[in-house]
């Protein structure tokens, strides 16, 4: 029981990183832009967040720094793909490669730096309950905020006018343009918002989840988050579910290792990556289903006819 509660807690912790990043990418993709730069943005944000945490001691400053870094890089990508009509795949890759280099370069002086004692969190009364307390109520506030964010984004996308406009830009930018909406600016705003969320996720990795800075520490979570948006058929609720599922897979390896299962650790480390492939295969098997759920203009550049 005790270990199960801890496993659930660890799963939520690991899933939160993926959830926040994937929610950000979901916003991008709902507006019609694929951001393959997620991994790079998260890495830079992880350094920015870590630096902020080292200097200020505040997690919230770290998240703000991460969000700013993510939004900035996403905007850079936005200018290239939205205004200069560069290939979205190639540009996103460029951002990932650039982010990996930049974060390694900028993070050099933080590899030796340690964060101070991390605060412990506990919701009064609830956290003292047996089992559910340690499983659900002793998390970093960001874990709950991620759930709130998923609900808020779902509400925004399907219950607000702004969300309708955003989705229309992703489905049919021509129609949105004809109605007088500034398609390019909306896409840029969506990219920046998504980048900010990826940035928060990156900062969460380096400041809360690990917490320390190591080169390349995001370890493919940006790419897994990208796969999650497809897995979730571009719906926030399913993103959250998928993120916890993947968080669970990540944690399972530690669990199995802890129980002395006779499998080399490397094969357990492979699990989340193999799981991503398996899930992609299962979900993509039916192209019609993907197509009917995918934003119709995903990945397609749009130039207003001037």
């Amino acid at each position, binding site marked *: 029981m005790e270990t199960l509660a801890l496993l659930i807690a660890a799963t939520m912790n690991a899933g939160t990183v993926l959830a926040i990043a994937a929610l950000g990418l979901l916003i991008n993709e709902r507006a019609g832009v694929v951001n*393959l730069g997620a991994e*790079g943005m998260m890495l830079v944000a992880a350094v920015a967040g870590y630096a902020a945490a080292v200097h200020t001691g505040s997690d919230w400053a770290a998240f703000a720094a991460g969000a700013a870094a993510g939004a900035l890089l996403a905007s*850079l990508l936005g200018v*290239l793909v939205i*205004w*200069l*009509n*560069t*290939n979205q*795949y*190639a*540009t996103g*890759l*460029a*951002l990932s*490669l*650039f*982010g*990996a*280099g*930049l974060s*390694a*370069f900028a993070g*050099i002086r933080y590899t030796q730096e340690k964060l101070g004692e991390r605060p412990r969190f506990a919701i009064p009364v609830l956290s003292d309950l047996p089992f559910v307390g340690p499983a659900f109520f002793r998390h970093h506030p960001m874990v709950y905020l991620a759930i709130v964010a998923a609900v808020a984004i779902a509400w925004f996308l399907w219950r607000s006018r702004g969300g309708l406009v955003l989705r229309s830009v992703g489905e049919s930018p*021509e*129609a949105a*343009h*004809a109605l007088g909406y500034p398609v390019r600016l909306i896409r840029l705003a969506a990219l920046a918002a998504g980048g900010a969320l990826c940035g928060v996720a990156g900062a969460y990795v380096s400041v809360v989840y690990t917490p320390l800075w190591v*080169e390349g520490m995001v*370890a*493919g979570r940006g*790419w*897994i988050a*990208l*796969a999650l948006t*497809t897995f979730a058929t571009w719906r926030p609720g399913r993103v959250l579910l998928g993120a916890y599922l993947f968080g669970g897979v990540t944690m399972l390896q530690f669990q199995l290792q802890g129980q002395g299962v006779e499998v*080399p650790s*490397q*094969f357990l*480390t*492979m699990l989340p*990556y*193999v799981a*991503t*492939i398996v899930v*992609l*295969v299962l979900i*993509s*098997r039916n*192209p019609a289903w*993907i197509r009917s759920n995918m934003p119709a203009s995903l990945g397609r550049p749009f130039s*207003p*006819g*001037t």
Partner: protein
Amino acid sequence: MLTLEARPAPSRAMSVASPLIALAVTVVVGALLFSALGKDPVRGLQMFFYEPIKSGYALGELAVKAVPLALIALGLSLCFRSNVWNIGAEGQFIVGAIAGAGVAMTADATTGRWIVAAVLLAGMLGGLAWAGIVALLRDRFNANEILVSLMLVYVADMLLSYLVYGPWKDPKGYNFPQTITFLKATQVPRLFDGSRVNLGLPIALALVGLFWVFMFRTFAGFQQQVGGLAPLAARYAGFSSRRALWTALLVSGATAGLAGALEVAGPLGQLTPYVPVGYGFAAIIVAFVGRLHPVGVVFAAVLMSMFYIGGELAQSRLGLPKSLTGVFQGLLLFALLACDTLIHYRVRRRKAPAAAAPTSARALRAQGGA
């Protein structure tokens, strides 16, 4: 107000000039970066653009790094031209290295030089098989090749780690994660005394020729590219998109695997966890900077090799982090993609705002949201 105006036809001149402009931008940003770090920018740039070419030995080292980059980028060029996004060449490189090492380790004192061919062949097959997984999952299950190929990089990395920490660990290696040093017979023959340049260089150059012929002088190569440029046209012409997918992935996997085998049986001489140094990712940049053209890839590979060597020198001589290489690589690709806009568009100064009374039929059409 400046606007972009579509050119009637893509500009060939810009297509060649764009990488040069991008390089210039990278150099300027690099100089600023060196100054910001309190280093002499001239000396900093020297590390990247003069030191790697100043002597015969230096040129040899340049080639040692350019060969794997060019090999991988050749395959990726074919991939990207076919609109197949294999970004997991790093994984195919690793599996190629593993397969090559597996064969190299079977050598004993009586083994002849023929084993080098077996090592390289094994590397190609290893890379090919790894990319084949991507092709299979894409073809059979429609799984996105970008994500699958990338995930397989992590899997390959773990596989390598498992082997060198586990069954393949050198029993006399003081518990270091590495295989035995391969026997002399398995070493890819070197071309000159006093330089690490080996048979990989002529192999790469021969493949450049082969790729050029395939891409631009064969019907199969033409079909491959039509599928990338205009999938609907290719379908109408009856060109198989499935075959294009398989060809692109298997070929690029094989070249990446070959590069991996050349690396372990060449300069490295053993398998360690440090075999992958990001060539598979850097080769993506090489392919784009080289205009997805076999000859262009050669120049771009040399440039990228300079970045690698420059980064190492900047670390040892200027005390700057080696990761500077990655920053420059990313910058170069960004600048290139931005400059590439000028191939299809030209910058025009527009006097009146677009909303001014549309009178011509064209303007009316444009307003309709064409």
